[in-house]
């Protein structure tokens, strides 16, 4: 689950961390009262989107006075921000965060994320705040300091000292910085974060530490114990939300071949298979191992009703999943909604014979395939037929 900046900052604030005062606005009329409430005459308006790179795309604007602020809100609300991370479709601005301006003296990069090599979270710091950190990691790895804190324990004192030395932070600012680092590490653990990124973490002209931006991603596996942090569905499409209700793992993609697969690995391999015959997948859909007939029916309905889809590939290797359950789900959905595009079905594994028998006796016009190769060929042939 990704949090928007204002949701992330609310979590930080609740945990005693100092963030700029701010308020979410959605209409031009809200700007004046928000300024009055916060005791400000000027400020900054920041588009609340999940993508990075919003500043360059015009999603962050300084303003003085309510009239200028209202004009920015009018222009940005509902606008589409296109950044290097969004792709051409962009992301629509649904709200803005009105915040106090910060007099920046220094910008620092700070994040905590999982280091899969070390099987432990890692704290990453750099004096090059506000920059594209991936680029720095690639070209100047010596400009990053990486340290592994111990889960269930504050940062070690030596880690704090190393951090301050590396970033050349001294005096009262160092004390404040040490407190913030420990608070961030606590929030990371308490919230089951998989990424907590402050870029930039600012030292203002008075030497205080200000967390200017925040990217916050919560581990999906921990959502059951992290309710109320944000809206888990905010960055998902309608089909993704619907499928999650049935325990299905669905991701919308841009192509024309719909697919329904069991197992994440086989589902990814199926996308690759579709790409190998020169076509593009319309979705990733893993029905998982324990889906019942109802969930499979729902899954196939989602694929059937996707207007992008010109051909469908059902690719199942039954392990825990039984082929007859898949077959019955396909038949149920097809009978209810009708099938207007070619459907290639490849079944293998647990209860494969029962599954094939059900499909054969259903009277539905399905194309059966034996192996992966055969399935790919038949999808390619079917796609040609649709085009001509």
């Amino acid at each position, binding site marked *: 689950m990704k949090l928007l900046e204002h949701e992330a900052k609310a979590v930080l604030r609740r945990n005693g961390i100092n963030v700029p005062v701010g308020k979410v606005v959605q209409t031009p009329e809200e700007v004046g009262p928000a300024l009055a409430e916060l005791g400000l005459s000027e400020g900054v308006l920041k588009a609340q989107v999940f993508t990075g790179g919003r500043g360059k795309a015009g999603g962050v604007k300084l303003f003085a006075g309510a009239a200028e602020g209202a004009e920015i809100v009018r222009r940005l609300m509902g606008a589409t921000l296109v950044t290097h991370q969004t792709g051409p479709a962009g992301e629509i601005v649904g709200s803005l965060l009105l915040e106090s301006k910060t007099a920046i003296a220094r910008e620092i990069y700070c994040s905590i994320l999982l280091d899969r090599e070390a099987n432990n979270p890692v704290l990453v710091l750099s004096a090059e705040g506000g920059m594209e950190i991936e680029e720095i990691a690639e070209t100047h790895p010596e400009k990053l300091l990486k340290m592994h804190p111990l889960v269930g324990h504050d940062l070690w004192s030596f880690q704090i000292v190393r951090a301050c030395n590396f970033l050349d932070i001294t005096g009262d600012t160092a004390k404040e910085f040490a407190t913030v680092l420990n608070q961030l590490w606590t929030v990371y653990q308490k919230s089951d974060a998989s990424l907590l990124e402050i870029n930039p973490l600012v030292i203002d002209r008075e030497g205080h530490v200000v967390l200017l931006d925040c990217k916050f991603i919560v581990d999906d*596996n921990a959502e059951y114990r992290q309710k109320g942090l944000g809206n888990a569905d905010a960055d998902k499409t309608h089909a993704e939300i619907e499928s999650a209700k049935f325990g299905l793992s669905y*991701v919308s993609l841009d192509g024309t071949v719909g697919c329904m697969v069991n197992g994440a*690995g086989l589902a990814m391999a199926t996308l690759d298979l579709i790409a190998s015959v020169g076509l593009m997948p319309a979705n990733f859909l893993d029905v998982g191992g324990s889906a019942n007939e109802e969930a499979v029916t729902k899954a196939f309905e989602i694929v059937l009703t996707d207007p992008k889809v010109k051909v469908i590939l059902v690719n199942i290797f039954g392990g825990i999943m039984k082929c007859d359950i898949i077959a019955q789900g396909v038949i149920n959905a097809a009978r209810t909604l009708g099938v207007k595009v070619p459907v290639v079905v490849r079944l293998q594994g647990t209860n494969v014979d029962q599954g094939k028998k059900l499909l054969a006796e259903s009277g539905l016009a399905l194309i059966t395939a034996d192996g992966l190769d055969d399935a790919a060929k038949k999808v390619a042939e079917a796609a040609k037929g649709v085009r001509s």
Partner: protein
Amino acid sequence: MSIFVDKNTKVVVVGLTGKAGSFHAAQCKAYGTQIVAGVTPGKGGMIHDGIPVFNTVHEAVAATGADCSLIFVPPPGAADAIVGSADAGIPFIVAITEGIPVLDMVWARKEVDRRGSLLLGPNCPGIVTPGECKIGIAPGFIHKRGKVGIVSRSGTLTYEAVYQTTQLGLGQSTAVGIGGDPVHGLNMVDILKRFNADPETEGIVLIGEIGGPDEQNAAKYIKENVKKPVVTFIAGAAAPTGKRMGHAGAIVEGKSGTAQAKKAALKAAGAHVAETAADIGPLIKKALG
């Protein structure tokens, strides 16, 4: 020779009385695995499908001499079950559970390591030594004892490779799924070391996916140590950057985690790279002559 487990391995199923535990314990037993005990707190003393149930893994080990645990406990209690197994002295732990919070696995992995146990998974299909034992959720009937060692991060792609090698008459020495989670126990290099030392394993199939360092480390190990033919397939070349595809471990993190980078590293290490999952069987058959 089998790696890790064989017909003498005695398995305690943690979470035996749940739906998944019951079903798969029965399947494992039918395959020939020695299921000697089950654990469900509060149900100690009962007999479930002919299997004695205990309250803790410690009690189960004391009473039955179990030396492997198979975990079906739901996510909130799964890390606890893993550490409990290690604490009871179980040397080989197989965790099937999908969806364990990552931070739980961070400390569970440390606790398992500290006690000297080996952990397979979590979020994995388990391990099969064909003709001897099946510990996990793989469909047993597609396996055939033979000469290919299979290691994979994905369950269904393990089955795919098993099926293809069975169809081609090669069979498997052992098939291992290490699981799709970012923090897991045994990694690809751990399994490769065993296959490399195992005289029955003549060729190796290694199936990876996007994200994480496992395949890059495997490539380095293969280059320096493995003389046996290795066929690899990396799933996820067509996956768009940053979108999570089912496995928590499969987010593309920077360039070294991409399918292209992993394939290039493995190719440079001398492995044969299958472009689609359909090519896995034919490539290993060709490589083995």
